[in-house]
């Protein structure tokens, strides 16, 4: 029996499609796995189902009835609950309160809170899933797995018929995972339909009944779990032609510019990283969200303190305690989140471009605005930033042009080592090609480039070597000639 159905859902953000004509169907009493690469559209699909985003087109049907108006409140009252990767509990409130809040009326008179009843009910729900958590504990004091269990109890309390679990085992130990699976099986037996998102393909046969593969915002295929192997799933997840031409040229590799030996940071969750980059070389970092790729970049750049291993620049050991020290050493980092970290949206293009180099632009007489203007003009021309004036705010530019401004800022610092974190995410095709061409030019000038990317064709097309991260360390390194999408994804999934 079909419980919930998403019918031809399309959703785009700022012109970039997150979902394209995606369809999905969930039966009562089944665990339906949803798999796909980073950015395949899983999160957006879940948000559409739970009313957290409104699709541009397409329908969502519950028991065959179309949900015409949707919001998190409406979807919750219809019995659709989601447990996100980051638990959404109220940190200052108690467990009992977290379970009760938002549930209309609470079964009480005059909107009065019945504390005894709340505690009793929380205890019942927690007992039902075998969680030994006191209803009176403050949510902020719970561990991640405990918070997750509280969220499940909350969903049960709301009589959820559809339960979405987004990477529920990502931070769980084996014992906690076993306990969670027991809870999921009990819920399944009682007729709850569950959507189970996970990157851990090996755990799916143990828990899922069916599986749907998402790729590039489209639902590719739905199978009985028993009929597919994880190898087939990987092929379906990747399954993309190596389209697009990359401007890759052979560059003679120079000396080793940058090296990490046994590099790690407890705070960043990375460990034992060995990596070398030569002059003119482009090294790619592949891996799933949470594998530690951005954390590695941040630790190199001095945003998180490392605690083990050494970092060498041209054979000399260096320590970086702050990004300004990295910049002085000509190590640059283009962050992943362009709008929040890459550019200052409200500042003019010119100020954005010179922001990391102000030291060289100001002297005894204050800022040298003539020089700032020259630099800004030079880089906007070189990178082809399309704008009528360099004094316009960056927020007036398109995504691709914003990214070129972000990149310009780091080129002004004359990097010897350039770390690019998802440099072409969410930019248009034209700008993407221009950024790739620029990367090649930089490599030809002898810059050592480290590129983090979730887009396998981009890694395969641009990089000389590809290091695959899993669980906070480098699992495997492939040479350009040996790497394939299947091999990289398998390594990223820990196979």
């Amino acid at each position, binding site marked *: 029996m079909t419980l919930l159905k998403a019918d031809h859902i399309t959703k785009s953000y700022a012109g970039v499609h997150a979902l394209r004509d995606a369809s999905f169907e969930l039966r009562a009493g089944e665990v339906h796995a949803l798999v796909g690469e980073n950015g395949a559209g899983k999160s957006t699909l879940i948000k559409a189902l739970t009313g957290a985003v409104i699709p541009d087109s397409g329908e969502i049907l519950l028991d065959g009835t179309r949900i015409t108006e949707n*919001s998190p409140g*409406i979807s*919750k009252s219809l019995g659709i609950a989601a447990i996100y990767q980051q638990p*959404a*509990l109220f940190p200052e409130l108690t467990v009992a309160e977290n379970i009760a809040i*938002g549930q209309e009326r609470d079964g009480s008179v005059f909107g009065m*809170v019945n504390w005894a009843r709340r505690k009793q009910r929380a205890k019942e729900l927690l007992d039902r899933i075998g969680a030994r958590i006191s209803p009176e504990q403050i949510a902020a004091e719970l561990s991640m797995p405990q918070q997750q269990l509280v969220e499940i109890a909350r969903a049960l309390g709301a009589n959820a018929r559809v339960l979405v679990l987004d990477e529920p085992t990502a931070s769980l130990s084996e*014992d906690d995972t076993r306990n969670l699976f027991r809870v999921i099986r009990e819920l399944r037996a009682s007729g709850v339909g569950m959507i189970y998102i996970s990157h851990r393909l090996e755990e799916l046969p143990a828990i899922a009944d069916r599986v749907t593969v998402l790729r590039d915002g489209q639902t590719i295929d739905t199978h009985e779990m028993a009929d597919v192997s994880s190898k087939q799933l990987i092929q379906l997840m990747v399954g993309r032609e190596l389209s697009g031409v990359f401007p890759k040229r052979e560059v003679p590799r120079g000396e080793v510019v940058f090296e990490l030996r046994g590099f790690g940071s407890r705070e960043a969750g990375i460990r034992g990283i060995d990596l070398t980059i030569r002059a003119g070389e482009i090294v790619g970092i592949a891996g799933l969200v949470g594998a530690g790729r951005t954390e590695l970049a941040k630790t190199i750049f001095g945003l998180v303190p490392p605690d083990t291993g050494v970092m060498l620049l041209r054979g000399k050991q260096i320590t970086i305690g702050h990004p300004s020290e990295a910049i002085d050493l000509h190590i640059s980092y283009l962050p992943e989140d362009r709008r929040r970290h890459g550019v200052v949206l409200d500042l003019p293009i010119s100020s954005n471009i010179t922001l990391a180099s102000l030291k060289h632009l100001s002297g005894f007489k204050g800022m040298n605005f003539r020089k700032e203007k020259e630099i800004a003009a030079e880089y906007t021309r070189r990178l082809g930033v399309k704008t009528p004036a360099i004094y316009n705010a960056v927020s007036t530019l398109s995504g691709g042009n914003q990214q070129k401004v972000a990149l310009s800022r780091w080129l002004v610092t004359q990097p010897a080592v350039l770390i690019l974190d998802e440099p072409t995410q969410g930019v248009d095709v034209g700008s993407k090609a221009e950024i790739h061409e620029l990367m090649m030019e930089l490599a030809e000038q002898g810059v050592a480039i480290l590129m983090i990317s979730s887009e396998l064709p981009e890694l395969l097309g641009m990089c000389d070597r590809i290091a695959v991260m899993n669980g906070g360390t480098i699992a495997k390194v492939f040479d350009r000639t040996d790497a394939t999408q299947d091999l990289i994804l398998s390594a990223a999934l820990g196979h």
Partner: protein
Amino acid sequence: MATIGKTYRREISAAAALAALLVIVAIIAPSFFAPGNLRDLIVNNLPTLLIAIGMTLVILVGQIDISVGSQFAVCSVAAGVLAKTGLPMPLVFVAVMLIGGLMGALNGTLIGWMKLPSIIVTLAMLVMWRDALRWITEGAWVQGLPENFQWFGLGQSTGEIVIFMISLLLFAVFAWSLRNLIVGRTVYAVGSDAEAARLAGINSPNVVFWVFIIMGGLVGVSALLNAIRFSAIPGNSGVGLELKAIAAVVVGGAAITGGRGTLIGTLIGVALLGTIGTALTFLGINPFWEKAIQGAIILAALASDVALGRLEKNGRSDLAATTSPA
């Protein structure tokens, strides 16, 4: 018992500070505890307490309101003007509360529904109401108030009791509702995590909107109860009231970021900051130190909170690391 100590840690330390202050005063200047003096002290601070009740709600929901001092002045003058028209006092009371509520609704609309930052909106209102009032009254006091205005025409001692009872009742109602009504708990939820509240199906903008209306209404009550203590109403009352109220709420243990705090804490905060001024006089210290000492107390309250929070967090993560599989 251990959880109570932890949950109300901030309230308990504020209460301890108040107790320490009272003990010092009791030893050095026992005349401080003369009934007349205590009575004055309490009545003087009741209007601040009422404002601080509203401010607690505003801060719990993760916002701030610095326009309350100006709203207070508008409500005070309005109370006098309305009373002079011959309107019966109970109706004046209701009318002033409505005027405050309307000013609050304006704040609430801009902040809750239009998502403008509360500090800027209420800063604008602070200036706007104050100067509009100055322009209208031209700085004149409201004088020639009817007989039944001062102390509601009941005489000072009965009037003081009435003021006390109304304040006590409002305090009790809000303290109880905040803890025991579902709407009270949603105030905590919205301030704790607005996005989680949205995902839990709570209408956060609406909660913020109503919290500002309540704030305004309480300003009205506070202004009226303050005005009836005198025979004339100045056009510039309530200057600096917002800072007094915010300070009391913060000293009383509420997190300025929202989601944590209690009205008992606010009561202790008002008592602590209110006592200091008078206590200094009795201790023979120059009262010019009052503001400096109040400032130091606010800083100490915040610093101890951050330090304790850090200590606790570190202890917790170490614990989690050593005992992960339960």
